[in-house]
């Protein structure tokens, strides 16, 4: 019997997800033993046409990391969906839009203008822009079309499971792969469709090792503006920490070393809009006696949109800024 087939694809993402797979260390050998890798551009040399040649549903599992930001990302999302029995949105970008999702505060033209003409380090007097189609003697060359709106994977195709995180933690990735390998060997049922795998069901505060008491804030500060206490909850010290509005599963690693949670594991179950919930959380701990004082304290939040929706803008209620 041939081995079940495995694929991994890198869309609009930084590549951290690809590297995070190596965090499973020597277990990668077991993955290689169990699966036949048919497509994984960063690791093995298969082309798109090799995937196109497969039968529908021939790949057992595909880990898709990265947001959908251009026509190539989307083409591969449709192709891999067609060829895979299980399609997993892997990492913050595929599940939530991630950091690339912040591009939704502007549109494709604005981004191109900035990158190719307005950046102070750019010297482009003729205003040369990349073109999507170009005739050369050998034929026509084409580049993928850059979208105005960055999307999460499930806004484009049907997704079976989600593994959140920027990047997903190694032990969590292994826990998911081990479960699937176990089911393949000994049988058993897969988790229900739509399940968030490799993560918890509570908020990040639950795993955070810091001491939490009463939260009352007179003003928010950036981490370098305060001499923070090594034991106390960061939020209680006025440092914005996304912990209350973020799913657990990471082990609270950032807060343990004094880095506030950035919210990469996405919203906890039952929350649809991570940023809106975070706003609500922060507003409820403002310690003010008058509406004016509330406004003053609220104004000390640096960049609410970029902070609350750092990973989740594409999957938020509004999905983008108005253009």
């Amino acid at each position: 019997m041939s081995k079940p087939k495995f694929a991994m694809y890198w869309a609009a993402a930084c590549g951290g997800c690809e590297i995070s797979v190596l965090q499973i260390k020597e277990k990668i050998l077991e993955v290689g033993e169990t699966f036949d890798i048919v497509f994984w551009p960063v690791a093995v040399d298969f082309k798109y046409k090799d995937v196109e040649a497969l039968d529908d549903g021939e790949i057992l599992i595909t880990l898709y990391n990265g947001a959908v930001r251009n026509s190539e990302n989307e083409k591969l999302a449709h192709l891999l969906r067609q060829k895979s029995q299980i399609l997993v949105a892997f990492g913050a970008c595929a599940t939530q839009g991630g950091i690339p999702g912040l591009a939704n505060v502007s549109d494709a033209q604005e981004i191109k203008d900035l990158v190719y003409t307005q950046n102070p380090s750019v010297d482009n007097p003729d205003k040369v822009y990349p073109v999507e189609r170009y005739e050369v003697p050998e034929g026509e060359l084409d580049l993928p079309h850059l979208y105005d709106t960055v999307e999460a994977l499930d806004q484009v195709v049907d997704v079976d499971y989600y593994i959140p995180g920027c990047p997903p933690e190694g032990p969590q990735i292994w826990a998911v792969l081990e479960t699937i390998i176990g089911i393949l060997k000994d049988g058993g049922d897969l988790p229900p469709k739509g399940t968030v795998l490799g993560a918890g069901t509570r908020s990040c505060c639950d795993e955070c090792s810091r001491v939490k008491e009463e939260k009352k804030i007179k003003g928010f500060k950036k981490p370098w503006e305060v001499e923070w206490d090594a034991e106390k909850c960061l939020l209680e010290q006025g440092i914005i920490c996304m912990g209350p509005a973020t799913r657990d599963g990471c082990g609270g690693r950032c807060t343990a070393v004094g880095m506030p949670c950035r919210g990469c594991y996405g919203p906890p179950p039952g929350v649809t809009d991570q940023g809106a919930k975070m706003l609500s959380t922060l507003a409820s701990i403002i310690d003010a006696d008058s509406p004016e004082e509330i406004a003053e304290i609220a104004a000390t939040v640096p960049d609410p949109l970029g902070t609350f929706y750092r990973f989740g803008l594409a999957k938020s209620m509004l999905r983008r800024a108005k253009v």
Partner: protein
Amino acid sequence: MSANDFEPRIVGFLCRWCSYNGADLAGTSRMKYPPNLIPIKTNCSGRVDPTHIMKAFAEGADGVLISGCHPGDCHYINGNWRTAGRFPMMEILLEQLNIDPRRLRLEWVSAAEGDKWAHVVTEFVEQIRELGPLNWQGQFHNEYEEEQQEAVTA
């Protein structure tokens, strides 16, 4: 749609103890005000999560009005104070999303203030009429299909 025949669609979140009764009073007193606001009764204005506001805008509202008891009169002691706490940050966030913060309004209307309710709604409808339609979903289009079609015709 031309600017003239634009009818604002406004979602109103009204607390059941003060503002909803205030709106009721405006109705039973036969006060005249524009019919553009869809009232939603909440137990307290403090129950209105920023998610609800986002959802209203995302699903077609041109404006959102939150109305509760006057400060100090909250049935739940300080629920309206929590609403007030969220408001300034919500305004900053809306501005960053390029939504005019004037599309979101917070008012205190007691059960006895039917006239104030009618006045607030009239004023707010005019304000939104001036700002024009928001049409949130109108800015999304299927970029993949468009690109495919372009590739065929190119």
